[in-house]
């Protein structure tokens, strides 16, 4: 017997191959079914949905670009995109640099490391709905924690969620609080793999603290910084739970986001076509970032 791969005496290559394939697809069948129903089909259906009229009585009807036109004509449409971009931008300002800085500082400390790493990640573990509702109470313009703190310093309280000028920033603050632990810990892991000799050499060359960060830390973590940037953009552009639970899109559409508008179209106006059209636009934008992300992480492999 020369065949070492065949489990039993050879019955001919064709039957063996057939048998192997049948077994393999048997093992794959569960995954093929769930992916087909809950991933692949919805991906296709999302595109169809945007060009159809869907009510739950008649079979879907092709309406061409009517859904897109409806959505474009909606006054909230431009607001939703501007708010989503503003949210993403503000979340980058707060949420992108801060975890990196925090990681750099934490990495230098010799004490309380376990404690600091633990507490920075606790908000990430909380169910987002809990964190968001907690902050809703803190934002209370009357007796909320934030205004109470301002009051201690004799600063007049803000109206936080109730004013269109501060509402969006308030959402960004919650979002940053409950998500920055992830970035911090990932950066911390990356910082620990930087060889100490590089800092040694930079210091011998007379590089001060900030120069060492700029010329050693950042180049050494360049790839992870880029990956996290893309991931954060993709994640924050889907923002939904914050406006849904905190403001309901208000005041005066100041916090309507694309995902929230999509939800409203489908579940408040019963217009799944309009919602689908919004989803498709969001999908196209986010897929560009996802594609760049996959590209970047693959480059790292080679």
């Amino acid at each position, binding site marked *: 017997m020369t065949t070492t791969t065949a489990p039993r005496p050879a019955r001919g290559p064709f039957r063996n191959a057939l048998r192997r394939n049948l077994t393999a697809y048997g093992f794959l069948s569960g995954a093929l079914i*769930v992916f087909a129903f809950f991933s692949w089909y919805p991906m296709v259906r999302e595109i169809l949905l945007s060009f159809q009229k869907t009510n739950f009585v008649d079979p879907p009807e092709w309406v061409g670009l009517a859904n897109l036109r409806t959505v474009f004509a909606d006054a909230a449409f431009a607001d939703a995109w501007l708010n989503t971009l503003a949210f993403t931008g503000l979340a980058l300002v707060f949420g992108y640099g801060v975890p990196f800085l925090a990681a750099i500082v934490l990495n230098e400390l010799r004490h309380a490391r376990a404690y600091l790493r633990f507490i920075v990640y606790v908000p990430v573990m909380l169910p987002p709905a809990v964190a968001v509702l907690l902050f809703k109470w803190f934002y209370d313009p009357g007796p909320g924690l934030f205004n109470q703190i301002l009051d201690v310093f004799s600063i007049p309280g803000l109206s936080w969620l109730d004013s269109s000028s501060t509402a969006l920033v308030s959402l960004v603050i919650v979002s940053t609080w409950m998500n920055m632990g992830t970035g911090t810990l990932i950066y911390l892991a990356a910082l620990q793999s930087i060889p100490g000799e590089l800092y040694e050499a930079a210091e011998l060359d007379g590089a001060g603290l900030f120069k060492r960060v700029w010329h050693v830390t950042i180049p050494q973590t360049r790839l992870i910084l880029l990956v996290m940037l893309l991931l954060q953009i993709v994640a924050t552009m889907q923002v939904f739970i914050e406006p*849904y639970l905190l403001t309901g899109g208000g005041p005066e559409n100041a916090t309507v986001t694309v995902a929230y508008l999509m939800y409203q179209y489908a579940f408040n106006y019963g217009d799944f076509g309009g919602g689908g059209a919004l989803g498709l636009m969001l999908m196209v934008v986010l897929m560009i970032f996802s594609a760049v992300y996959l590209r970047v992480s693959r480059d790292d492999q080679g």
Partner: protein
Amino acid sequence: MTDTAVRPARPAPAPAPRTPRRSRRAREAAPRVRGLVSPHTLTTRRGKIVYWTVLTLVVTLFTAVFVFPLYWMVTGAMKSPDELVRMPPSLFPENIDLTPYAEAWEQLELGTFLLNTLMYAGGAWIITLVVDVSAAYALSKLRPALGRAVLAMMLSTLMIPPMVIILPAYLTVKDLPILGWDLLNTPWAIWLPAAANGFFVFLLKRFFDSIPRELLEAAAIDGASPARILWSIVLPVSRPIIGVVSILSVVAAWKDFVWPLLVLPDQDKMPLSVGIAQLSAQMPQNVLIAALVIASIPAILVFFVFQRNIMAGLTAGGLKG
């Protein structure tokens, strides 16, 4: 369909160290050389002063930002409605009153919500493991025709953020194509979509690829069936990756909000976070806060116990600098 909020939810297909275990051990074993600041600087008088100042500042700031809100939540639930709105606020509750907690538990039916959450997370975990482990095993070791194409299609789902296909996914669950089943308000609406996770298949397959082929062939020659090989050889050596996938899937199911909000509209079917959110408007403030505390406790406990695994799961995608 499992992760919704802002977090780098899917550290996607990224560089794979062939043997994840060895590299992790190596990193831990490596002597800690130095960071940004040289150890020499820290021994000088000035260096010590600066170090302890920074340490105190950081610990104070982090505690204020991450622990104080939780303290405020736990004590807030003990305050009476009058004490809650007082200016300036009381730092400690005047008397420790646990009745809001009892009220929250009863009025909000937190017990039901909690059981629902456990059922959704547990079921999602089991189904995810069964489905994704067998798929990864087939793709890695049985190598069927078109296996690479199937894997590519599974990975392609990682490019689609969950939020953008949530409407078609909802319509699918409401009226399953061909079969015509309505899964709304059933646990299957949570369990099955949770298993369709390309990232888990990727993680598992990458790990299985590193198991030497000879090991499996030896068993095959002894007459072991593929199922037997999976159970007796592949699974026992794959404990680390199965641990990571387990943690990731349970945490995702536990934290998810939007998907259960849509597919479980009946109040007695809701998981904890959706239930509290839906009832939040009708509750007195201190009862609502007590409910939030109760909902936070399991998450913090789980994190406390599984800290290491959860942090390992963070970098599981092979994200590195």
